[in-house]
């Protein structure tokens, strides 16, 4: 796993998540908790929201998995080294 690739994908996901957060007025983490607790089941019957909620949940779960990976990579190598590697790639 390449850190640069991971950071780029997390940024893309955050932009997508922000659109949903703005539209529905809650942060993705709170939406995720409510969905997984079954508090939003009434929206399953609403065609216009169901697919959006499925997409929002899927994107947030993907972001969570990338965030776990990010912390694994950061823990593996010092941040200073990560930055130097990234700068070397940028100037290559």
């Amino acid at each position, binding site marked *: *796993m390449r850190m640069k*690739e*991971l950071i*780029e*994908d997390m940024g*893309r*996901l955050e932009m*997508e998540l922000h659109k949903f957060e703005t539209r529905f007025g809650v942060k993705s983490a709170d939406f995720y908790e409510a*969905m*997984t*607790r*079954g508090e939003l*089941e009434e929206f*399953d019957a609403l*065609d216009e929201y*169901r*697919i959006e*909620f*499925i*997409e929002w*949940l*899927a*994107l947030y*779960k*993907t972001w969570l*998995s*990338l965030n776990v*990976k990010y912390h694994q990579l950061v823990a593996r190598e010092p941040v200073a080294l990560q930055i130097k590697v990234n700068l070397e790639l940028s100037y290559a």
Partner: protein
Amino acid sequence: MPDEPLSSPRAYGLYVYGLSERHPSIQRSTLVYIPSGALFGRVEGMVFFEGQVVLCVQEYLNFELGVIEGYGYEVSHTQVPLDVPDAPGAGEYCHASYPHKEKFYWYDSFPHPSDLALASTDLIINTFLPISSVTASLLLA
């Protein structure tokens, strides 16, 4: 030996675009893999079978974990021709409220933690198989 479909975006693209070749009962497919990043993407479109049977597909793929994080599938009988130039596309036809179709069954990843039957199937499907292959197999049976 082909790669496991969920091992990479490329492998999943090959899997999706090869469905028609592997399953002769598929008359036509508009499924498309849309990359959103190096590690995630989506599949959208319709698969057409004999007898005007249509499978609508929407999948959200996570290649970091190698899973389908979200999905929506619907099998219907279309009441309008879908092979003409001005036919509705997936964005219109696959909307659940589209009127000119008879819905047979549908399946999606909307969580229902209080419904144990739905919760268990979500786990099985999402963990082991791309559901499009499961649904296609059902139709081929």
